[in-house]
Every structure is written in C-alpha cells, then in structure tokens.
C-alpha cells in the first residue's frame, strides 16, 4: 500500500515540523505534500525538514501567494498525489501509533475510503478520552464502535455520514477521489463538507476502524479559520447546494439525503450561534432559500413520517426571523 500525507498549512511552521517528525517515526508514508496556503513566511524545506531526513526525494512543497483556504490547498495537493492512497491531515493535529497499525492492516485491501476514530482535545478537557459525544452517538448508532477493521453497509454509512465532517479522519483511495471528482470546497471555512458528503455519496466500499488515528486539537484562538464569525460563513451555501443536488438526484440514496438534511439543519443552527449577529438576517434568508429549493413538498411529506423532529425544525428554520 502506498500512501501520501497531504498537509495544508498556513502560518504554522512549528507544528508542521512536529507532525513531519511524527510522520517520519511512523514510517508509513511514501510521500508528503505540504501545501502552503499563503503563509506570511513561505514554508521552506530547510525550516521544516532536517537535511538528511527520509523525506529526501519524497517531499513536495506547493506555495500559494495568497491564502485561499485549506480546501484550495488540499485540492492543489491532490493533483500531485501519485500514490494509491492519500491522507489529508492538519498541521496542528497529531498522528498516533495506532494509525500505523491501521495502515498496515489496510495493505492489500480494496476500499474507497477508511474512516477511523480520533481523540478530541475538548473530550480530554472534559476528563474523557475519545471523540466528542455527538460523534460517538453516530458511531454507536451505526453499530461500529468496536472493531479494528470492517466493511460497512450503506445503512451504516448513512449514520456515519452525520459525524463531524473532518477530512483528516479518512484514508482515501486516490483514484476514488480523482475519478469521481471529489474535492474540498474552495471556501475559507466549511471547506471539508463537500469532500465528506460526496465521499459518502460515491463510496461503495467503505471501511471503518475503531483505531484512534489522530489527536485533534480545537483551539479557542479566534484567528483560526474555524473560529471565524464573519461573512465567510455565508459562502457555505454554494457547496451545500451542489451536495444537495447530487444527493437529491434520481437513483441516489434517500436515506443519505435525509442524513444530509439533518446535518445541514444542525449546521445552520451552529452557524447562527457563531456568526456575527448583524449577519444573522442574511443567514436566515439563505437558509430559507436552501430549504425551499431542496425540500420540496413530497420530500417534506416523507420527512414528516421518517423524522418528524427534523420536519418540525425545518419549519422553524423557515419561519425564523420572519416572526
């Protein structure tokens, strides 16, 4: 099995060096592509990689003159991936030894992508160890909390699709992404949603592992893109429209579309709680447009039977701001 590690990075040379040293110790990556998203001081090979490291000849640095977001950085890096498989990872997170065991167990297996577990720093702060409760609930619902490696059914996939849309908790088959044109959105935030949902939409051979492959840090630092409160949040509707069209097309899984609607309904509430208050009116209007476009009468009628709580909440979101 050949594997490339893709690392988008923006002004994070110190953490980048740390994760590259980890990657070296794990010994599971054939190549590394660092995609510098317009760092103030461009990432240099000398700064992040010791001169005689294993990466000689296998290390590519791509530079973008301006910052266009991690989605753009990942997409650009994907064009340079030639190995069979790829792992997108964040420079401020940590790889784990269990990831190496997972990669070795995947050798010789055919799969579109393999989803693995992670430990969230917020969980540690709460005195626990593992994923956040909402993610654990979806793993529990799918019945896959225990098991070093297994293939999942479409039903289980629909449950897992509702987990946090991280790009770094999946090992992808490179051709699966390229042949289905599965990419990140090139928005400053929420750029992982399209990669996540289109993967579940196209995925037929999906594996899951209860191995913890990543330690994910959530920082309160307002400068980090994930903590932004501005207009950039409103750009999410473009990729959401694309996903909804794809999932709503005839012949695709109604169950997955329903899972997606559940996800976006929750996402709209989350954005509303995190966006700057003056932008809420625009957000509410965009939410109404999205729901009216993609939840027609027939679909709503079906939702009222299969998930009446969601149906009621959609009505609430349609009426929010108008009352």
């Amino acid at each position, binding site marked *: 099995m050949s594997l490339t590690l893709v690392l988008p990075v923006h002004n994070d040379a110190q953490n980048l060096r740390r994760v590259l040293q980890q990657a070296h110790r794990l010994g599971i990556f054939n190549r590394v592509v660092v995609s510098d998203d317009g760092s103030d001081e461009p990432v240099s090979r000398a700064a992040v990689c010791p001169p005689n490291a294993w990466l000689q000849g296998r290390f590519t640095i791509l530079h973008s003159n301006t910052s266009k977001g991690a989605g753009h950085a990942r997409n650009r890096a994907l064009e340079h991936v030639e190995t069979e498989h790829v792992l997108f990872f964040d420079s401020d997170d940590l790889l784990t030894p269990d990831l190496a065991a997972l990669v070795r167990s995947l050798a010789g297996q055919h799969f579109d992508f393999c989803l693995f577990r992670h430990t969230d720093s917020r969980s540690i702060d709460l005195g626990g160890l593992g994923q956040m409760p909402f993610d654990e609930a979806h793993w529990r619902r799918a019945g896959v909390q*225990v098991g*070093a490696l297994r293939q999942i059914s479409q039903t289980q996939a629909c449950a897992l699709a509702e987990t946090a849309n991280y790009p770094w908790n999946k090992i992808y088959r490179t051709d699966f992404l390229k042949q289905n044109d599965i990419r990140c959105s090139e928005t400053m935030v929420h750029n992982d949603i399209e990669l996540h949902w289109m993967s579940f939409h196209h995925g037929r051979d999906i594996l899951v592992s209860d191995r913890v492959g990543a330690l994910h840090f959530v920082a309160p630092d307002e400068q980090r893109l994930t903590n932004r409160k501005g207009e950039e949040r409103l750009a999410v509707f473009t990729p959401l429209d694309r996903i909804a069209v794809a999932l709503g097309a005839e012949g695709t899984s109604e169950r997955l579309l329903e899972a997606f609607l559940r996800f976006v309904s929750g996402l709209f509430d989350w954005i509303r709680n995190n966006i700057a208050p003056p932008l809420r009116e625009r957000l509410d209007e965009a939410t109404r447009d999205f729901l009216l476009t993609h939840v027609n009468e027939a679909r709503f009628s079906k939702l009222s039977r299969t998930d009446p709580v969601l149906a009621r909440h959609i009505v609430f979101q349609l009426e929010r701001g108008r009352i």
Partner: protein
Amino acid sequence: MIHGIATSFDGQVKRALNVLRKKVTKSNADLNPKVNNSLAELRKKVIRGNIQSEIRFLPGVTLRADPALKIQGSYDSPEGRLLTLDITPQAQGDWLALHLSLDSGDYTPHGFVGFACRIAAPEPVIVHPCLRSGTKESFIDSFFNKHILATPEEASHLDALPIHNRSDLPLHAPWRELVLFLPTERFRWSLHDLRVFVV
C-alpha cells in the same frame, strides 16, 4: 556483611549502594515477566482463526471452554491489540475462560497481585477475573472484587488483590494463573491490552 569491599571509602559506598540497588530491584521485581512478555508478543502478532474448546494463542495464553458448550466462532489479534473473541455456544455448559500462566514464585514479600486492562465490546460483556493458585490436590480461586465490564466505549479496568491475611490465596503455590471467566452465552469481546503486576 558485604563482600569484596574496596579499600577506599568512596568505593565502599558505591559498592554498598550497588548491592542495595540489586536487593531493592529484586524485591520489587515484577514476578510475572513471563506473562507480560507473552502478552507483548501477542500484541505484535496478527493472528486469526476459528474458535475451538481449547486454543493456545501463545505459551501461557490459552482459551479453555467446557466441551459441553460446543463453542463456535472466531478470534483475531489485530496488531497492537491482544484478542478479539466472537463466540457462540451451541449448547449449555458451565465455563469458558481465558487462562494466563503466571510465575509461581513466593508471594510473601509482596502486598498485592493485580492487573490492568483495556477492553471494549459492542454489547456489554461482564468478565469475572480470579487468581487461581495450584494446591497439592487441586487449585483454589481468589476472585477479584470487581467484575470487568466491557462496553462499546473502550475503557480501562484496574484491580488488585491484597495478598496477606486471607485463606484463599496461598503464599506459595506450584502454579498460578490469572483466569478471566467469560460469558457462556453469545458475545463479542475485545481485549486491547492487559498487564499483570505483583508488588
């Protein structure tokens, strides 16, 4: 009396410290290096197979079942973990357990015998651990106070038995085992890690 004392005072002190260091190390030694070494070997291996009434995964690590249970199923040992068992009894029976051979050394200098483990199971599984000590005629079981409860959330379990002032734990025994009594109904259970200690 410490033998071979060097003539200089510094040399005497250094020699004395070295002797004491060895005495302290020996008295606090983990009396069960063999089982922990066996478990470390199992963690490195990747093995799988079909369940039978008796399976020796490695020297000192054995699954034994009452033949009346007629157990079927599978086991595997993913890299970095010990065992995943998926077992379905086909009939009624009395016992099914994982046996781990321990050193039979003198427990007199020690205070506790125990273990730590990390487990998970898709549906809750209760395992009853005991220390089994051989006697002249048979054996005697000393059950740990706590059951091991495995749930879908991977969790740690730690328990220890006080060694002294009890009638069910002989200080000397020709052989000893840590026995993990497993359910005699259908179950799936993952033992990710296990370490035994005598301190």
